[in-house]
């Protein structure tokens, strides 16, 4: 990417959740990430590693414990008030991971998808209806569905309602949290093509959180890998997918199931062994040390920092094997 302009910059972004007896969950622990204009950054990683929390904290849906987020060079508030949300609705949106609990069951599809526009754009109600109808068809839903309620839809259909709701405001930056996981492969292709088209036509920038590594490789410019609240690796998506550097990334990519029964029958178990990490007691050293096949003495005492590789300066890895 030439002349990439930073759009969203997180600096040591941190989010802890309190637990009983003074303990806390280190959900996001000092993440530095720069997302450039018109860039799609794929975020993958262990479930529970803090991807959703990072996305929500990034756009202010959760107050920050520490660290800063800058948007177009301006620092965003540590904790949002109603006015901040209103101001920001047209620039930043989120597609939520859970298409079930994120849709109000008492609102029709038209009300759900059109709500943001109604609040923030002042369109007349007939224009609004047309806009809702056109967004429903862009995500592959029949506009006739407008008067129905969320419970009348399948999982994948609900997920697309959530996508239309976020995109209808034509925001600049969208955190897409598992936007396609509940969709069949054909509708996935349709949504991914739509996102790519919007990137071209409206200059949309995305943080694309997903577990489907093949799809993340396909859609993202860069791929970031999160492990236990911190970034393990980030770099061009193709390079990370085809030649992973961090030992966790290697295991992750090697576990990606292939749509080929013969290959799968030959596969031996790729299950990671070793103690299950806890985001509660995070000590010194590498977070992956307890499960890493390459761990060294140094790994247990010194926390590896995310650093560029000597021979590939656009790739960053947090692992002592590389410095």
């Amino acid at each position, binding site marked *: 990417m030439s002349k990439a302009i930073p759009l969203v910059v997180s600096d040591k972004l941190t989010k802890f959740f309190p637990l009983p007896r003074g303990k806390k969950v280190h959900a996001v622990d000092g993440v530095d990430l720069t997302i450039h204009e018109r860039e799609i950054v794929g975020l993958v990683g262990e479930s529970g590693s803090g991807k959703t929390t990072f996305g929500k904290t990034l756009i202010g849906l959760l107050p920050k414990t520490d660290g800063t987020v800058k948007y177009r060079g301006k620092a965003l508030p540590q904790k949002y008030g109603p006015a901040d949300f209103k101001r920001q609705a047209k620039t930043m949106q989120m597609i939520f991971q859970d298409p079930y609990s994120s849709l109000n069951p008492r609102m029709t599809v038209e009300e759900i998808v059109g709500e943001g526009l109604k609040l923030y754009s002042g369109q007349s109600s007939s224009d609004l209806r047309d806009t809702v109808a056109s967004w429903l068809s862009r995500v592959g839903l029949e506009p006739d569905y407008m008067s129905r309620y969320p419970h009348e839809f399948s999982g994948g259909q609900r997920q697309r309602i959530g996508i239309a709701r976020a995109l209808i405001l034509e925001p600049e930056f969208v955190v897409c949290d598992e936007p396609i996981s509940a969709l069949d492969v054909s509708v*996935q292709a349709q949504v991914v093509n739509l996102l790519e088209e919007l990137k071209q036509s409206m200059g949309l920038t995305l943080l694309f959180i997903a577990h489907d590594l093949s799809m993340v490789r396909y859609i993202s410019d860069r791929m970031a890998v999160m492990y236990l609240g911190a970034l393990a690796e980030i770099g061009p998506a193709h390079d990370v997918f085809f030649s992973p550097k961090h030992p966790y990334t*290697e295991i992750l990519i090697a576990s990606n199931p292939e749509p080929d029964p013969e290959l799968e029958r030959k596969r031996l178990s790729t299950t990671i062994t070793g103690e299950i990490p806890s985001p509660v007691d995070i000590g010194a050293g590498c977070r992956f040390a307890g499960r890493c096949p390459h761990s060294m003495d140094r790994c247990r005492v010194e926390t590896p920092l995310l650093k560029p590789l000597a021979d590939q300066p656009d790739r960053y890895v947090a692992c002592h094997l590389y410095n």
Partner: protein
Amino acid sequence: MTQNTSVTDEPPLLEVKDLKVEFDTYGGSVQAVRGVSFSVEEGKTLAIVGESGCGKSVTVQTLMGLVPMPPGRLKSGTATLRGRNILGTSQIDGQDFRGSEIGMIFQDPMTSLNPTMTIGRQIAEPLEVHRGWSHKKAFSRAIELLEMARIPEAEQRAKQYPFEFSGGMLQRAMIAMAIACEPAILIADEPTTALDVTIQAQVLDLMGDLQQDHGTAIILITHDLGVVARMADEVAVMYAGQIVERGSVDDIFYRSAHPYTVGLRAAMPSNDPSARRSLIPIEGSPPDLFSPPTGCAYAARCPYAMKICSTSEPPPFVVGQDHFGKCWLHHEEVAGGWEKILSGAPTLLTGAKMARASSPLAENKS
């Protein structure tokens, strides 16, 4: 696994015949499931794949008596567990079969878990109900089950509420709940959708172990064809409320017998490093389930559609042992037939193998 002789008097573990389910709505009735038949055998995994909204969840939820009726309506069909009816009831011989005989992992963990009850209690409850265990015994078993489902700090986590769990952890908690009573059949509706691929592998292993140890039959609904390739013995491909192709996992991937199955292939990203082709979704949209077409439900989108396709519904043509495709192209009078017409067309199989040779970890596992 022992080879089963097929001629026995034993009824199949689960047999579903001609299931039809409709929903009465405002605009008319939605024909969500339109004549679905299948059976599952002990120790085997049947995967159900198909487009979003084609009736997969409604099919299995009907078996579990979870479709609210009304607005839902059972139009026809039978379902038997070891020969005993399970439709329209939650009991066999006065015993609730749900949870004990058939366990279910739901697509939406958040709405099927009780937000006001701790995770541990929710897993312990069926053990108290079905097994008559004490509060304490059931709760410590719940912790063990959470550990089996790879939840870190299981003891502490058991005392937490659903909102305190990440999406993937909720899914694993549901799995712990579903297997608590060691059911004969485990129905899993997108059980690993919310999980990263390493934990997905662990959960699939967990389900596989359960199957090995207890001969559990698994019905697995998923959109992930990699998961299908890994887990399934048999596959049913659904489209617009019907099973349009059914066969062994190899049949479906290497000898696809329905244009819809073939169409899925072009929509998937390939893992070939040199390929940068765009994803090709299947053109058009699924038919209106208020008034499904008279002919083949796929006709409006099918690149091979013929005249007959829009007027008569294709029967399931048997194309191999236990393999059928509901498509007129298999009719003997179709010039050239399926092989000619689709020769050279891609099957579902992703031919490209991943260039993983460079990874040292990939090497030691093979």
